[in-house]
């Protein structure tokens, strides 16, 4: 794994009552360049242990002086967004992982159709900067609640004009997806029900799956605490209510490859041997789940889980 990057919060502002934007600067040297759609993991030192949440980079990829992320306050979450909203101040330093991209633009698309739901606007902010520089054809459909989850909407109206379509409630997706030119690619990011609806509608209208790209806004959710037995080392660990299984392994010093921390990229796949599992990923097939789990999101739902680690 690449070493973490130390950054300083150089600015912070509320975009809406529930979305806070952070501007980050490298504490030393330049930040690594990144491609549109990339995310970083922000390391959050909470009292219960270290969490790591993934956030899309919203800034212009051409600008390597700054990164920007936008964080929605999740009341029912484990405390990562709470910490970023309530604790972090301008001038504070944070650790972030280097950018990684699991939601890249398709380089040969003739038209890019972007559908964002709420905080799902974030990767598209970097997309739009890159698409404008490439003079590519694109349009943005933005589903958001006015005054609550409509981050960046005024700036986007000025910048995009008729290429921006905003909706206060779920639009008729078939009107967006029907009769689009050959070579169009569709990208969607936002809450799971929106992604499901977009993918279903695209399928019903005959879109090839390779032209439909999506990024879920998954993060580890809290759950019951449970014990962990590591069969190869014979160690026993405890996974707390707010901790993910992956974070518990990392706190114990284990290095598990990972990128998305949302159960989609497949990097942290681990074999489980005994114990009841609550699978929360969208990577493994049901057959694979019999032997493997994704520790970034999935948990034990009994007293103890043993892993082949």
């Amino acid at each position: 794994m690449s070493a973490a990057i130390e950054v300083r919060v150089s600015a912070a502002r509320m975009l809406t009552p529930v979305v806070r934007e952070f501007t980050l600067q490298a504490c030393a040297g330049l930040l690594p360049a990144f491609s549109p759609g990339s995310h970083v993991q922000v390391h959050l030192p909470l009292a219960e242990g270290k969490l790591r949440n993934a956030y899309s980079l919203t800034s212009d990829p051409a600008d390597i002086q700054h990164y920007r992320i936008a964080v929605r306050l999740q009341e029912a979450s484990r405390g990562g967004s709470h910490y970023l909203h309530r604790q972090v101040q301008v001038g504070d330093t944070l650790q972030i992982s280097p950018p990684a991209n699991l939601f890249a633009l398709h380089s040969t698309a003739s038209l890019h159709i972007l559908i964002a739901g709420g905080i799902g606007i974030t990767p598209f902010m970097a997309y739009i900067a890159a698409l404008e520089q490439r003079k590519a054809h694109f349009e943005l459909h933005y589903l958001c609640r006015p005054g609550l989850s409509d981050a960046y909407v005024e700036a986007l109206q000025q910048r995009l004009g008729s290429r921006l379509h905003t909706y206060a409630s779920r639009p008729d997706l078939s009107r967006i997806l029907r009769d689009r030119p050959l070579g169009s690619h569709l990208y969607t990011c936002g809450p799971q029900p929106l992604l499901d609806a977009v993918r279903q509608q695209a399928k019903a209208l005959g879109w090839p799956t390779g032209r439909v790209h999506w990024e879920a806004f998954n993060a580890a959710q809290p759950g019951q605490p449970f014990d962990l037995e590591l069969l190869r080392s014979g160690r026993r660990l405890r996974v707390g209510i707010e901790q993910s299984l992956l974070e518990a392994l990392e706190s114990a010093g284990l290095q598990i490859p990972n990128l998305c921390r949302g159960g989609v990229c497949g990097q942290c796949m681990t074999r489980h041997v005994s114990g009841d599992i609550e699978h929360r990923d969208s990577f493994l097939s049901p057959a694979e789940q019999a032997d493997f789990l994704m520790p970034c999101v999935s948990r034990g739902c009994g007293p103890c889980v043993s892993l082949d680690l």
Partner: protein
Amino acid sequence: MTIQASPVQSYRDDFSFRNSSAAIRRFPFPFTEDSYLYSVNIEPATSRDPGSIYQHGFDIDEHYRSEMAERALVLDKDPRRYLVLPHMQVAAWDALQMLMEHLAADYPQWFSLVREGDHWHWRNTLLNIDQHFVFGDATSLPCEPLEFIGRQVQGDFALLDQRDGDLYMDAGLVTSPADWSLAFDAGMSFKQWHSPVPMAHQMGIFDRALKYLLNLQVGQPVRRLNWTLTINPRLDSSPETFHEWGADRGRITAENVGQQVHLRVELQVMARLPRSNAVMFSIRTYLISMQELVTQSGWGCRLHRVLRDLPEPIADYKGMSRYRQTLVEWLSRFDPQA
């Protein structure tokens, strides 16, 4: 190493290319056992063994000026050795940045890079190049960015676009290929351009390698060695010039084998390019004659066993069938058990 003073040697016509004893000692002899079969022999490209070819991300050695002169000759004759499809412009700038940053950091005695925002100043004292330019603006360079930097770095470069869960050869600068052609492979997917390789497909090598490369992360490059044989120290053994070198394979005799047959080893480095999300595949070629090779303890013996036992389809693919017997017999004198 005295790169500045070294005379320019040739990779064609009179073939004046030679390795110094230091270059022979650091030659990447690729065989770790007495036999060879395909494997996904990929490792993290981290710096190791100071002085070796693994010390720096892009190795500059005593052949620098000769190799750059050879590249200029090939490009002048055949501009199609350079190709950048329209959607690969960002990747080309990515490649320029990666190469300039590595060279300036690893070889400050020869290369320097000063950046003020988008205004960059590049100096290469080995080739007397002093260039101010605007990063991202091709009109501020004497030629396009990949060609500009490619004419100053040893090795070939292919830029692979990642889309549809695959990699596509959509840009590159390739003047020293081991019998493959960028113009022919342009636009092909990973498995399409590897389709001539025998046996490896059935072994699942390319499925595993592709999956690995699709997950390559910025700042975590990987590398591997590949090898073949070449008659004479000819860098440009491309299909486009087959008429110039193909017949050489039929002219190997017991008398000339030690001088003319060369082991050709490629150090391949694969790196994720940060802005474009493309993969840079660099191929740095090292050549060594059989005479030079057998000066190193154990190398002649091991190469004898590898070539003697190499499966026929691999020997055919590597183009050695016409002279393999002559070469194996010549090498057998270095194998105490032969």
